[in-house]
């Protein structure tokens, strides 16, 4: 196995991880500030992808499609926050799980009702299509490089927002002491709606960006949702830094184990059973990783509270 192939797989793992971060960041922010488990986060990812596909189909512009994805997901997020989620802040996790599970049902079938049962078309913009050659002779798709860049940029932006702005201070205060921030005259319900819409917009952005190289279809959000949960649990719920590290860990583990484990097993057994067994274990690898992390550190790598 050549070095080039290994480097290319590392890039693939990074790209996967960075996209997971977009999903996980919103999820962990919402949990950190409001203490809410949001199973419907995957639906917002789907809303973003569908909005992007619809707008791209009408206008042919990828930029407009991204804007539409952000707007649609943020709007959907704000609406469900005001209509449903805000009534759940004081209830236990159980009610939150059930209510957001109900939202998944409504969003999935609602989307199918509006857009039909067939997958939608969403393509990479022409300017970003095709591969580029990196130093060392690695051929790598330009769009995937763009995804890595975009993800890192969003990560930086989020860090600045939280560390350097007024809203960021309020968010951090909200995580620590809810009564205090209300007493300081911050409109807490507006802040919550804002944070929820921000998380939703990030999920929608991820949906649109990834939708261009995947299938835009009903139910696309749930597999990503589960992965995003794994990410934030590994990183420590509520921690943006944890989400970032966790996302890269999960992205790299999933990609590299899937590729290299069958190769390793081939040293000990026949090719066909080795690929099959390797692939079976690989599909469980991130869950094994998560269990190990939790057994070692019950509140994740960077988790403050459990």
């Amino acid at each position: 196995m050549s070095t080039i192939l290994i480097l290319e797989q590392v890039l693939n793992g990074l790209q996967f991880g960075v996209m997971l971060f977009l999903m996980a960041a919103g999820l962990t922010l919402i949990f950190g500030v409001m203490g809410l488990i949001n199973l419907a986060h995957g639906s917002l990812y789907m809303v973003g992808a569908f909005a992007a596909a619809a707008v791209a189909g009408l206008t042919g512009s990828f930029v407009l499609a991204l804007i539409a994805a952000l707007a649609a997901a943020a709007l959907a997020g704000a609406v469900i926050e005001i209509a449903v989620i805000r009534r759940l802040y004081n209830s236990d996790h159980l009610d939150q799980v059930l209510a957001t599970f109900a939202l998944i049902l409504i969003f999935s079938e609602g989307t199918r009702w509006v857009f039909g049962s067939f997958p939608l078309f969403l393509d990479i913009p022409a300017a970003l299509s095709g591969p580029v050659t990196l130093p060392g002779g690695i051929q790598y798709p330009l769009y995937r490089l763009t995804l890595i860049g975009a993800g890192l940029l969003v990560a930086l932006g989020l860090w600045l927002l939280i560390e350097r702005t007024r809203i960021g201070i309020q968010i951090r205060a909200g995580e620590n002491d809810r009564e205090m921030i209300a007493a300081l005259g911050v409109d807490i319900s507006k802040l919550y709606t804002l944070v929820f819409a921000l998380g939703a917009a990030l999920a929608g952005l991820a949906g649109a960006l990834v939708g261009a190289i995947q299938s835009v279809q009903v139910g696309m959000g749930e597999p990503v949702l589960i992965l995003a949960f794994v990410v934030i649990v590994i990183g420590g719920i509520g921690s943006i830094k944890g989400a970032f590290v966790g996302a890269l860990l999960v992205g790299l583990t999933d990609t590299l184990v899937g590729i290299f484990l069958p190769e390793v097993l081939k040293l000990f057994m026949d090719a066909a059973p080795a690929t099959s067994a390797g692939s079976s274990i690989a599909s469980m690898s991130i869950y094994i990783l998560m269990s190990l992390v939790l057994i070692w550190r019950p509140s994740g790598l960077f988790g403050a509270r459990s």
Partner: protein
Amino acid sequence: MKKFLMASAATALLASAAAADVKVGMITTLSGGGASLGIDTRDGFMLAIEAAGRSDIEVVIEDDQQKPDIAVQLADKMIQSEKVDVLTGIVWSNLAMAVVPAATAQGLFYLSTNAAPAQLAGAGCNANYFAISYQNDNLHEGAGAYVAQAGYKNTFILAPNYPAGHDSLNGFKRFYTGDLAGEVYTQLGQTDYAAEIAQIRASGADSVFFFLPGGMGISFLKQYADSGVDLPLVGPAFSFDQNILQAVGDAAVGVKNSSTWSKDLDNAANAAFVAAYQEKYGRLPSIYAAQGYDTANLLLSAIDKADVNDDAAFGAALKAADFASVRGEFSFAANNHPIQNVYVREVIKEGEIFTNKIVGTALEDHANAYVDECKM
């Protein structure tokens, strides 16, 4: 009620061979991510039933949500309370495995519009079970034959890690004669294939065979086209049906795929079917619609010949396959699976629509590998 029907059928026997009303239960996927396949199956089937304009057939349609336990429950409902004579419509092999053995054991006829797993073609075959679509391996065998005919010597093959994926690669290898540059099982439901595409690039292959049904195929094709790897791709028709192609777009143009049906297949039945389907539903039919349509016409032909309550006679009438298939020549092998051609199609763009055209024949009058294992 059943007794009464049978009695009246017996008296009517004097006048005509078939007078009993036939009740058909269709269990198919109408909601969730896999709904498009079931919707096409239903629409193709009902097109033929409605065109026949008969009052002695009743069709009950239910949604299995692509869940095996729901499918079993619906089958129980259709058998126990609807009292259907014939079951049909299941899209997925795992659901078929859950429903078909129990249904045929209770004396019902099952006509498969799509799924036809190996177990039901070999040792588990049954006189009351007919696959009108194909045997699951057929399209993969066709692809293997085509790749060998086209002169490729070093193919990279991949499929998801589940039974149908294993069957697929085995079917391919049954007719492929060259070497394998790589053999990879991906995760079921996987959406990102960057890692596999990198492996393909590094493998030195001269061609790629892939079986990735549904959304998995859409993702793979888009990512493959964008990767700069330009080895020829071959796959079974599942990743290139009419509905999926529109979501893949230009990325699929030029790809060869194996299929038992295509909308440009040159026969009168097919021309009439494509025109009628387009007129009624406003979209082009997919292979699932074609298989649904054929299933309904086979059923109609058997109802004309025999009483559905007479298992032996009705089975023989089905087995005669005395109907005009949209796939041209069509007959049943000893294990009630089709003998038919497997064609090679190429994806083209027709105006604004992506579709397929036939460019060759991979296997002629092909049956399946399990005929000898079936003891009926």
